[in-house]
């Protein structure tokens, strides 16, 4: 029985690690579903192509070549080295050691592990450069106001996790005596092995086992860290690019609820004194625009969870570049923070949201930020995973204008002019063709 204790402990760790993750992912789904419905099931082919090109193929990442190249290394490392996790899980559950070595050709196995080792080293180097960029270099987008505190440590935590996991993987291989003796698939760890020459075989075995256990436990902890971190993008980038808007970026949605009312207003046959149809009076009139997360659609909420706070949007935002309060990244971070707050509220109240007197507007995002936007779409264009901060800004402006009449005074004048004169300026519509005869 004692012989099976490691296997049992491993199984428990695995079940706990995956189970806890699944519980949190279900919360994530529940929170995203708080958003309004929007149909993004059309054009499956184009959606799939976008996902393959942009998320899987990283096509927008490389628009900034240095960070794009480094990111591809880490991304490829993540995808490929994780094949090794499969072997680790089987070994852990059944008490085997490097089970694939016996199943597949030894040279093939060596090639695979060798590739993992090379990638692990490359990832180590890339992560080190990332850390230097975040902490030493003076890169403005990592130093913005919204990156103080948790967002900064979150970014660094992820890098530390990855550094430790790569180190453990290489140490595990370096202290595996039979693996080193076989000499196949150890292109990197063979240079680490000499550091352990002075240890007894028992001590080496203990180090190897410790590294092995810490490696897999680290992976399980990292998996569960995702839910609390900006690092969720490694999973959500795929659905996010799949469900992203396919229309031209300049095309804003036409609100159906408004169309109904405008048609009624313009219909000469409409009876202004008509009684509402039976049952209609109970319907709550639809809110125009968004003041809280539940007024946004589920794709906008998915966007918020997907954002990894890289700040490419903010670094290309004309308002932000000229010192205005607006930062598209902050719009996404605020949306997620508020959504998580609403989620915790529901958790604490048996799944039902109890009004907390707060909302996304004012408590997180200030009108001053919203009114600084030029709707230029630079943030949408820049986002490596097709997040659309502009749609949230627009929906919140709609709320400010249509529900609260809280537009800046000059915009109210502009709108009055459009209404009265058919132009944003106070000119007489009868003078509209004067330009033709002025030269």
């Amino acid at each position, binding site marked *: 029985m004692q012989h099976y204790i490691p296997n049992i402990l491993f199984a428990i760790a695995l079940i706990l690690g995956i189970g806890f993750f699944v519980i949190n992912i279900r919360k994530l789904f529940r929170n995203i579903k708080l958003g309004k419905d929007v149909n993004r099931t059309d054009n499956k082919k184009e959606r799939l192509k976008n996902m393959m090109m942009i998320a899987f193929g990283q096509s927008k990442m490389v628009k900034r070549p240095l960070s794009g190249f480094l990111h591809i290394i880490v991304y490829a490392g993540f995808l490929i080295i994780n094949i090794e996790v499969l072997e680790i899980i089987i070994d852990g559950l059944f008490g085997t050691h490097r089970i694939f070595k016996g199943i597949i050709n030894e040279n093939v196995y060596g090639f695979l592990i060798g590739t993992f080792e090379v990638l692990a080293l490359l990832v180590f180097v890339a992560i080190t450069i990332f850390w230097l960029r975040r902490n030493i270099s003076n890169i403005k987008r990592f130093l913005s106001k919204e990156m103080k505190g948790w967002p900064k440590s979150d970014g660094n935590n992820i890098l530390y996790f990855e550094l430790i996991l790569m180190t453990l993987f290489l140490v595990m291989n370096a202290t595996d005596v039979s693996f080193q003796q076989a000499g196949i698939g150890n292109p990197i760890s063979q240079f680490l092995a000499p550091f352990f020459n002075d240890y007894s075989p028992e001590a080496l075995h203990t180090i190897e086992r410790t590294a092995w256990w810490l490696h897999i436990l680290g992976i399980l902890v990292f998996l569960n860290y995702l839910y609390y971190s900006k690092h969720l993008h490694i999973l959500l980038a795929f659905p996010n690019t799949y469900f992203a808007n396919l229309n031209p970026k300049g095309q804003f949605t*036409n609100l159906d609820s408004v169309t109904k009312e*405008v048609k009624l207003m313009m219909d000469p046959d409409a009876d202004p004194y008509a009684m509402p149809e039976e049952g209609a009076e109970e319907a709550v009139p639809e809110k125009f625009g968004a003041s809280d997360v539940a007024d946004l659609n589920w794709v906008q909420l998915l966007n918020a969870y997907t954002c990894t706070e890289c700040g490419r949007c903010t670094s290309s935002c004309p308002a932000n570049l000229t010192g*205005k309060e607006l930062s598209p990244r902050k719009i996404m971070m605020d949306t997620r923070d508020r959504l998580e707050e609403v989620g915790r509220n529901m958790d604490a109240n048996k799944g039902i949201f109890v009004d907390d007197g707060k909302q996304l507007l004012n408590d997180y995002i200030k009108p001053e930020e919203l009114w600084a936007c030029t*709707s230029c779409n630079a943030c949408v264009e820049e986002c490596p995973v097709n997040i659309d901060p502009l749609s949230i800004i*627009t929906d919140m402006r709609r709320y400010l204008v249509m529900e609260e009449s809280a537009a800046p005074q000059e915009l109210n004048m502009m709108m009055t002019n459009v209404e009265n004169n*058919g132009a*944003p300026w106070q000119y007489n519509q009868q003078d*509209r063709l004067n330009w*033709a005869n*002025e030269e």
Partner: protein
Amino acid sequence: MNVPTMADLMAQGKQPEVLFWVGAAGSYDDRAKKISRAFVKILHQANVNFAVLGTEESSTGDAAKRAGNEFLFQMQAMMNIEVLNGYEVKTIVTCDPHSFNTLKNEYPGLGGVYKVYHHTQFIQKLIADGRLNIDATTLKGKKVTFHDPCYLGRANEVYESPRDLIRRLGVSLTEMKRSKSSALCCGAGGAQMFKDAEKGDKEINVLRTEDALATKPNIIATGCPYCNTMMTDGIKFKEKEKEVIVKDIAELIAEANNL
């Protein structure tokens, strides 16, 4: 200047091949009116049978929509669509990327379906159809940089039409460090044109003008009346009016062809 209206043509039982949507800026703004006139001269030279709505044209509602007033936008859109559909308009050309975007992308969902061209696309088509030539000698040797209007570029991915026309002018085109999909906004979009900028440490149009001036141009070319205003103000702010002028591509073509 002969600018027929749809009402005139209808009275004569005629239908033009294209409606020129002038837009509020092109109708009322002194600087933008010159762009409207330059474009009309080009249409005349190419013998295009066109018309405008004249006093029947009203704001597309673009600025109201970007400001968040969906009600006002849809009211404007539906009134305009009623007029356009009444005249059985099929094809529209406009010098304003904001009107272009709204008419092309946002009107169809409300019942206004038209083939919509930005004037740079339309002029390109006139050249391709052999109806217009651009004289490549008049402006030869001038250094030009092109500022991408957001609602033409990123919003609708029209990057080549304006550049193709500029090259045909025989000038040398130098790109700014931020151009095409990564172009910086002039600061006018999203209804900013009609309000003071929010508190910051710089005006957006000044930053963009600096991008343009870094290419040491004689001419900053644009394809949007609002960008034109912003860049012109930027040049004034930088006190470079003597060395650098801001021109719409339609004006450059009219100048090149001595219209």
